[in-house]
């Protein structure tokens, strides 16, 4: 684990790219995915450029599965320089593009495209980070972070998975913050923290919450029972915290 104010020797970046064709920006203009991918590749290479010891993993997240786009699980491609680009960057670019094509080709045609499996991809990323930490040279200070690039909206069905993954990350990993603390960063976008009913997205001030997993705010008992995952008596939750604009 890296302390916030101590620079790390090696930084691992995991990028999760949502490649689900169901995303609105892809439906509107399929060529946009290529632009997004080019930007992700340039960003990943810039990360590798910072230090010789930096590492990278890119995970493609589709609706039927998530896969490592880089590093390639099998033997790496035999890449030779064709222009002045550093060989490693060429390898990253070619590997990502080749494996993405394979991932898209492997999507089952009969099924209608579903939701992106982002929680699963996040879990894959966390496992990769854990593994690279275990096999690091002893004494080497490592730090890691995950970047998720997605055009999908929030999905209720994966809420529990998201929560599991976030708590794991919070317990085990700290972000590489020592560099960020020095720079003046642009302001964060506003996140809407208001509670909304899971099934109909109606804003609510008082609702029903499952007492087991503390998830799922619902306006009425009927909605709760429809979505209930746990056979438990429900708990009435009160209050809708509207954050003071000054705090954000």
């Amino acid at each position: 684990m890296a302390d916030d104010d101590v620079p790390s020797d090696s930084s691992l970046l995991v990028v999760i790219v949502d490649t689900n064709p169901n995303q609105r920006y892809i439906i509107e203009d399929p060529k946009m995915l290529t632009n997004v991918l080019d930007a992700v590749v340039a960003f990943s290479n810039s990360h590798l450029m910072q230090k010789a010891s930096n590492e990278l993993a890119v995970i493609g997240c589709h609706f039927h599965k998530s896969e490592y786009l880089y590093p390639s699980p099998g033997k790496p491609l035999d890449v030779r320089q064709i222009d002045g680009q550093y060989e490693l960057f060429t390898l990253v670019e070619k590997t990502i593009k080749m494996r993405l094509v394979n991932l898209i080709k492997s999507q089952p045609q009969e099924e209608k495209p579903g939701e992106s499996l982002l929680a699963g991809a996040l879990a894959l990323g966390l496992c990769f980070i854990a593994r690279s930490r275990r096999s690091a040279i002893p004494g080497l200070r490592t730090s890691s972070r995950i970047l998720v690039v997605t055009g999908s909206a929030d999905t209720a069905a994966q809420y529990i998975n998201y929560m599991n993954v976030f708590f794991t990350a919070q317990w085990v990993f700290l972000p590489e913050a020592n560099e960020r603390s020095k720079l003046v960063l642009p302001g964060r976008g506003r996140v809407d923290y208001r509670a909304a009913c899971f099934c109909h997205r109606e804003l609510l001030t008082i609702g029903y919450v499952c007492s087991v997993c503390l998830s799922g705010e619902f306006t009425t008992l009927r909605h709760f029972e429809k979505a209930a995952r746990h056979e438990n008596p429900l708990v009435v939750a009160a209050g809708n915290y509207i954050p003071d604009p000054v705090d954000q």
Partner: protein
Amino acid sequence: MSESSKSKSLNLNPSPTLQCKDLHEYLKSRSPQFLETLYNYPTICLAVYRELPELARHFVIRLLFVEQPVPQAVVTSWVSQTYAKEQAKACTTLSELSVWQEAPIPGGMPGWMLAQSFKKNLKVSLLGGGRAWSMSSSLEPDGKARDVSFLDAYALERWECVLHYMVGSAQTEGISADAVRILLHAGLMTRDAEDGSAVITRAGFQFLLLSTPKQVWLFLQHYLHTAERRSLSAAECLAFLYQLSFSTLGKDYSTEGMSNNMLVFLQHLREFGLVYQRKRKAGRFYPTRLALNILRVRCAAPLEAAAGARGHLVLETNYRVYGYTSSDLQVALLGLFTELIYRFPNVVVGVVSRESVRQALRGGITAEQIIHYLEQHAHPQVLWRVVWLLICAGSTHKLVLDEYMPTPRPAGRLRGAAGPRPRGRGAELAARARADHGGDPRRTRRRQEVLEALLQEQLVSPPGRSTRLLSLLANKIVSE
């Protein structure tokens, strides 16, 4: 290379400390015209970029795609006020290396603009375009390809030839006259007045205790200094070296298109173990780990570990060191800071005693170098004992330093040493320290507190943190 800069400032004794400049210091000592020609090589731009301080790297990448000059005030506003000093340091580094220049903005405000050649070639190395660095794309696959473990063993064997020669052991074949000339030029060896043979100097001993990447880099720096004399262009050589350091281990690269001078340079690198070639006329070569680690000085996996040689030192808590080796070189290195008491065909036994450490310190070797050497060569299972040894020996060091740098004690409490206390430099340092710190009891107490705190930390932290702890410990002890 913060280790070397620390050792420069902690020089407690009159003998000169080894000057180990990193790439930036080396470049700053060159003329701006030389740098101009250097930045035409994408490899150099990438190498220089990677060694910039962290804020400077962020500045460069933000300016990389901007064509006009950017106001200096804007660049200053990128960093929060608390880090203004770091920001100033980043700006000076970029100016000294001619990576950016001052450029006025229409309207009169001062601005920054990246040097054209640097900008263009860094972009090429990141995104593509331009010419390939070598003609390797047309190489046929090698029928007799060599794997990584072979390359590691080869590199280790070749590099150790140089080190063996330095300690005068006849265990390995000698080295070329060129290599001897470089060692003499670097001050690591000197011609003996009587018989003209080369003998190792104090600086040479310090060199031997450095980590292998540092040794290689220092050696190459001196090679480049003498390159001009042999009509080799230092810029071309440097570019080729960095090209090597960016290659992939286990892959072969073509010699096609290389100038005669570069082919000569390649043969020298082959002798020192940085590249492997089956035959001199073979059209391809394999870079080894020694070449790749030129840039990764701090984080490189040690070559010895990669070559399968596990640490051969076993440390005991009674200050004894058992070295399971028959290599003259390793024995000589151990003898630098321990008192050797037994030698068998495959084991050598030494004691880390007060006298032996003091002798090492007098010879210009720093405590940090000793710790680093022990860490590099200790058997993995006793690695943690290095820390233990030094926490216990922390008091030994304290005593050694106390005697070497005498501090006044109440009369009648001499530590039992019979002879007169060393005078001269030690005494004047002590006098200055007294003036700075205003009294000894505080210093002694503080040192004790530091040692206790470190012992606490060792008891609660996992063994993997030993490197950080060691340098912490070394710094604290030696600097006070």
